[in-house]
């Protein structure tokens, strides 16, 4: 006799043990019920796995291809430096870089060894450019380029080879050419696109554009003009003799000159208004737009030829800060005054036109002291940034009040208000800094952020090219397949539950005698209810586990069959845990509900009748 067998216990979970014992006793029947559940669930899992896997593959391919995260503007407009700084700060932007004018970015390229030639588009690149870094290359350094596969093929070059880019321009009917040798730092995968493009650092692209604009690029030894700042004025003073201004000249002054308003000024107040005295009749001419330039004065001079009227460029008071050599800062305003030899007027005082090589521009400071002879500076706050100008005092000392300077220089300061101007410390020349760029290349951090960025840019009236539609197509496919799946899943789960409910009901029917005996022995209603509930859960768990096993095998077979169509790391089927766990718990709940049906059967039978009718 096995003593141990009588020293055991059916506790804890006595009803669970009874339910398990019953399932084990009828293991073949239990297996059949579980297999019936698995037979419904396994195809559903395979279907769901295929749906998830296929969508995930499409999504991964979308995610992995940086072109799908790229956004380019549809229209050309000026994007200034501040715009780029702002967009770069957005958390969903991984990379953004300016583009120069498209027409200025095409160059001739030559393989320096073989002489193979081709036309390439230069595209700027930089650190974190996913198109370059995720397509098999590093970002090029100075004097390097990265080529697309098509451009490398045309030039017959490989990584490490040298190519020469050439750009041509026509200046005064003369053809000019500039060239630059670049080392091929890498060749991109075909995935990066079929265009013939050379990716270079932004200064190279800017240099080509500058050269085509006729400007010089000293860094590469390319000759040309410099982007000198041109004075801008708010108007012109007309100083007439004692006979006044003939009405005919009044009309001429505002006809095709860029000037439209003529206003007579009180000569006695000129010193306060303009900073210099005038002993004659004075008119102020105002332009139609915001400012006038040298060509407007040329037109005005032509119109007033022979009138004896003096024309003096006029700049409204410009608010500036004076940074004195001793560290003090003064709020001041710049006023323009005529320059001897250029605009000969009765006005005083007259100062000499500054020489470009001087240490700074000559000014008359408002203070009563003497000029220090050292470098003070004047700072103008402009839209594009501050312009700091060294100032050499002719008279006076730095203080609050009007700072007088030659009209030409005041005109430069006037220009610095509306666009960025910088001073070349070597030459003393004022150069305009480029206003901005005509386009950009931008990469979102993830494909899910492309649409947000598109909406943001379009809200700023920047229509863009993007791959949002492809991304949305995948999402729509996912959504449609999900509906399709859930519909089938619903029908399938209903089938599985029907199988389970029928099995449990039949089991309760079959076991009515045994369950009645358990009731007779004193098991309470809530204990008896647990019997079919445990059995329903166990059969569901076994069926679910079998379905997972069948899915795993089928998944491996499918993966093997379609391995040629899959990239490394891709799986044709994948089961996301979330929905699978949700379905599992749904089945458990439904199994419990099914067991309720069995319970109804158990308690619907009269106990004494069940005892009489049953037999072992």
């Amino acid at each position, binding site marked *: *006799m*096995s*003593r141990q*067998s*009588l*020293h*055991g*216990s*059916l*506790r804890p979970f*006595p009803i669970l043990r*009874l339910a398990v*014992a*019953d399932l*084990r*006793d*009828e293991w073949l029947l239990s297996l059949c019920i579980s297999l019936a559940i698995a037979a419904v669930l396994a195809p559903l899992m395979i279907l769901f796995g295929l749906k998830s896997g296929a969508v995930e593959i499409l999504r991964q391919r979308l995610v992995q291809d940086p072109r799908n995260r790229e956004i380019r503007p549809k229209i050309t407009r000026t994007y200034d430096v501040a715009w780029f700084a702002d967009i770069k700060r957005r958390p969903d932007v991984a990379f953004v870089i300016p583009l120069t004018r498209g027409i200025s970015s095409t160059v001739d390229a030559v393989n320096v060894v073989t002489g193979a030639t081709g036309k390439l588009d230069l595209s700027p690149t930089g650190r974190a450019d996913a198109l370059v870094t995720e397509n098999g290359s590093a970002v090029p350094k100075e004097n390097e380029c990265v080529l697309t596969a098509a451009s490398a093929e045309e030039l017959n070059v490989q990584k490490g080879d040298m190519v020469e880019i050439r750009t041509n321009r026509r200046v005064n009917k003369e053809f000019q050419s500039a060239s630059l040798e670049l080392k091929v730092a890498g060749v991109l995968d075909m995935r990066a696109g079929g265009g013939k493009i050379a990716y270079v650092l932004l200064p190279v692209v800017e240099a080509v554009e500058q050269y085509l604009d006729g400007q010089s690029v000293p860094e590469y030894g390319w000759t040309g003009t410099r982007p000198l700042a041109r004075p801008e004025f708010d108007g012109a003073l007309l100083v007439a003799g004692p006979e006044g201004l003939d009405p005919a000249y009044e009309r001429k002054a505002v006809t095709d000159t860029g000037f439209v308003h003529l206003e007579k000024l009180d000569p006695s107040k000129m010193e306060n208004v303009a900073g210099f005295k005038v002993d004659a009749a004075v008119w102020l001419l105002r332009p139609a737009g915001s400012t006038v330039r040298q060509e407007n004065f040329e037109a005005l001079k032509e119109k007033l030829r022979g009138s004896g009227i003096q024309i003096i460029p006029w700049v409204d008071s410009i608010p500036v800060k004076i940074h004195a050599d001793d560290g003090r800062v003064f709020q001041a305003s710049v006023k323009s005054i005529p320059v001897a030899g250029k605009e000969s007027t009765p006005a005083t005082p007259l100062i000499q036109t500054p020489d470009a090589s001087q240490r700074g521009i000559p000014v008359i400071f408002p203070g009563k002291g003497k000029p220090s002879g050292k470098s003070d500076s004047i700072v103008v706050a402009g839209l594009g940034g501050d312009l700091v100008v060294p100032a050499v005092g002719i008279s006076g000392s730095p203080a609050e009040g009007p700072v007088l300077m030659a009209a030409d220089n005041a005109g430069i300061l006037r220009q610095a208000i509306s666009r960025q101007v910088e001073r070349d410390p070597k030459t003393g020349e004022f150069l305009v800094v480029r206003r901005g760029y005509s386009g950009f290349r931008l990469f979102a951090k993830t494909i899910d952020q492309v649409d947000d960025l598109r909406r943001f840019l379009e809200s700023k009236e920047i229509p863009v090219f993007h791959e949002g539609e492809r991304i949305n197509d995948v999402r729509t496919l996912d959504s449609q397949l999900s509906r399709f799946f859930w519909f089938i899943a619903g029908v399938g789960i209903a089938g599985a539950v029907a199988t389970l409910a029928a099995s449990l009901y039949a089991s309760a029917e079959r076991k009515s005698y*045994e369950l009645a*005996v*358990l*009731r*007779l*022995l*004193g*098991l*309470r*209603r809530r204990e008896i209810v647990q019997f079919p509930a445990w059995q329903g859960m166990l059969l569901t768990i076994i069926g679910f586990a079998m379905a997972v096993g069948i899915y795993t095998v089928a998944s491996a077979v499918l993966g093997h069959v379609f391995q040629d169509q899959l990239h490394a790391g891709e799986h044709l089927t994948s089961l996301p845990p979330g929905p699978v766990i949700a379905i599992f718990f749904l089945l458990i709940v439904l199994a419990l509900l099914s067991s309720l049906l069995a319970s109804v059967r158990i308690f619907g039978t009269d*106990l*004494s009748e069940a*005892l*009489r009718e*049953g*037999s*072992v």
Partner: protein
Amino acid sequence: MEWVYQLRNVIVERSKGGASFRLTIPEFHIPRGSFTAIVGQSGCGKSTLLDILGLVLSPSSADTFNLISRYGESFEIPGKSAKDLAQIRRHHLGYILQSGGLMPFLSVAGNILLARMLNPKTATDPEKTEELVFRLGLEDHLKKKPSQLSGGQRQRAAIARAVAQNPEIILADEPTGSVDKYTAAKIRDLLLQCAREQDIAVLIVTHDESLVSGIADATYSFELAQGGEGDLRSVLRKVA
């Protein structure tokens, strides 16, 4: 005398298929440790009486219907809830059904352990159960399923389960109905032995009067009377 059951003027009325049956129990007391027999032909009310005593069926009326535990606790059965009745069945009643009433999916040992599962506090301890198993000759059958046992072995296993439960009374419904006479006599003797040694009242319901004649402490039978329109009246009477 210590009583396990006290019934006075208990009436049960049942109707089925248009015919009615009325069982009257004028006076029925079962002493502790006694061997009581209920005899009678089919349809006389034996099963109805057993259902009443097994707390499976509630009487239509009763002046007295009490179950008294060995600790002196008296349970007045009428008016008890289904939950309370289940508790009383669990702790105070043992059953042996015609076919044994064993769980077919449990081994003999499992069926005996079921008693301990139901009454972990009051059930007999493992050593006593072991002794009982020896006495019933089941020691070689503990791992077998009921379907692997003979009719007599099944009934012995059912006796073991009932006794292991340590109830106030064992209600045996035709326990010898499916065995030969020799085995029936052995089963009867085992039940009698339980009553005497374990101080458990045993009530045996049988159609075979000879099985209990001269052996039972008290024997009851039914007086049958035909009412109108197929109605049947039955009254429990002590015959020995």
